[in-house]
C-alpha cells in the first residue's frame, strides 16, 4: 500500500465518516501550541485581530473528545492563562469553564452542520465567553473597551473551519478503510 493512499484528503470529514478516537498526547500538544500562540508577541492590528487560540482549541476538544477535555480541564487551563496573561485570577478560568459547559450541549448537534454553520454557532459561544470576561472586568472597575473588542471572537469563528480540518486530520480513517 503506497503512502498516498493511506493519507486522507485535506478536507473536513463528512458527517457519516467515523473518526478514530483522539490521542491524549495530541490533545495535550495542541493545547500547549494554542497557549504558545496566545503569547506570541504581537502589536497593533495583529493584536486587535488575534483570537483566543486556547478557547478555540478547548472548544474543539470539548466537542470532539469530551472524555479527555471538559469543564475541569478548561478551568485549569484558564488559571494557567491568567498567570501567563497577568489578568485577574479566575477571569479566564470562569470564561473557559462556561465555554466548556456550553460545548457540552452544543456538541450533540453541532457536528451535523456544515462547517460554516458550525462557525456561526462557535461565534456565539466565543462572544458569550468574551461578554463574560467583559462583565467581570467592568464590575472590577475597568473602562468599556473599544468596538475592536468584538473582533477576536469573529476571527476565532472564521478560523473554526480550518482549525477543524487540521485538528481532525490525525483522527481521519485512512482511505483504504473508508471506501464508500
Amino acid at each position, binding site marked *: 500500500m503506497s503512502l498516498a493512499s493511506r493519507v486522507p484528503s485535506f478536507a473536513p470529514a463528512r458527517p457519516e465518516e467515523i473518526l478514530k478516537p483522539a490521542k491524549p498526547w495530541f490533545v495535550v500538544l495542541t493545547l500547549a501550541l494554542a*497557549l504558545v500562540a496566545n*503569547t506570541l508577541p504581537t502589536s497593533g492590528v495583529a493584536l486587535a485581530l488575534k483570537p483566543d487560540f486556547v478557547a478555540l482549541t478547548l472548544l474543539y476538544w470539548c466537542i470532539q473528545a469530551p472524555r479527555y477535555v471538559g469543564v475541569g480541564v478548561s478551568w485549569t487551563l484558564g488559571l494557567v492563562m491568567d498567570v501567563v496573561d497577568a489578568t485577574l485570577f479566575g477571569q479566564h478560568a470562569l470564561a473557559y469553564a462556561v465555554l466548556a459547559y456550553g460545548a457540552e450541549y452544543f456538541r450533540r448537534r453541532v457536528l451535523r452542520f456544515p462547517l460554516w454553520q458550525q462557525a456561526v454557532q462557535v461565534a456565539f459561544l466565543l462572544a458569550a465567553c468574551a461578554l463574560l470576561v467583559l462583565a467581570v472586568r467592568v464590575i472590577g472597575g475597568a473602562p468599556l473597551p473599544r468596538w475592536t473588542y468584538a473582533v477576536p471572537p469573529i476571527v476565532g469563528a472564521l478560523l473554526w473551519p480550518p482549525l477543524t480540518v487540521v485538528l481532525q486530520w490525525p483522527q481521519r480513517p485512512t482511505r483504504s478503510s473508508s471506501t464508500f
Partner: protein
Amino acid sequence: MRPIPAEPPPIFRRGPSPLARVTFLGLASIVLLFADARFRYLEDVRHAAGAILFPLQRLVRVPGEALDSVAAYFASKRDLERENERLKSELIAQSPAAQGYAPVRDENARLKALAGLKARHAEGSTVVQVLYTGRDPFAQKLFVSRGSESGLVAGSAVIDEHGVVGQLTRVHPTMSEVTLVTDKDHAVPVKVERSGVRSVLFGAGAGRAPELRFTPPSADIRVGDRLVTSGLDGTYPPGLAVAQVTGVERETGQMFARIECAPLGGVDRSETLLVLAPPVALPPRPEEPSEADPARKGGRAKARRGG
C-alpha cells in the same frame, strides 16, 4: 413492587454532571477573582505557577528563535548597510548631548554635594528583551526577559531609546511584567519641557491617547510641547522624555483643559528596553493636615502601581 431507580445504573460513571461542575468551578472562580482583585492574596501562587510555566514557554520558543537567528545571519548586505548608515547618523546626532553629558554630570554631582543632596537614583540599569505582549484588552502590559534573579525590583522605570515605556509592576524570577504608560491605571508625573508647567500624564487604555488631566485651561501648554518626567514621584528619574502634546482643547465653562498626548517611547514597537535601577528611597512623607491642599495634588500624585 420495587420502584424504578431514578439514576441510570453506574456503568458509565463520569463523576458529577457538567452543570454541577460548572456551578462549583464558577463559584470558585468568583472567589478567586475577589481574592485577587480586592486583597492580592494570590501573588505567591502566581509566582509559583509562573516559575513552572515561563521556562516551558521559553523552551517552546527556542526553535522559532533559532530560525530567526539563521534568518538574521543571512540578512541582506543592503539591509545591514542601511541600518549601519542610520545608526551612524543617529550617533552623530546624539554625540553633542553625549559629549556634554559627562561635564554636566560632574558639575551636577559637585553642586549636589555642595548642597548636601543625595543622589536620587542609583547607577546601573539592565537591558531586557520583550518576550510577548499581554492579550488582555483591558490593560496595557508587556512581558520582558529578566526578573528578580537579575536584580530587578517592582517599581523600576522602563525606557527605550526614545523615552519612557512604563514601569515594572510584577517581578517573577526569570521574567517581569511592565505596565505601559498607556495603561488606564498608570500615571506619570511630568512637566512641560518648554515652560516647566507640572502635571500628571494618565494613560487611557488601548488605542486611546494618554491625557494630562486636571490641568487648568490657563496652563502654558501648546501642541507639540515635549513632556518630560518631573521626578516628583520617586519612581521615574527626572528629565526622561515621556510624550508629546498632540491636541489641546480649551472649552469655556470647563474646569480643566483637555490635553491629549502621544507617547514618545515605543510602547507598542520597541523590542529592547532598559530597566533603570530602582529609585533611592525618598525620605518619608510628612504628616499631612486633615484637609489636603487641592492645589498641590496634581504635582504630588504618585504613579499608581498598575492593577
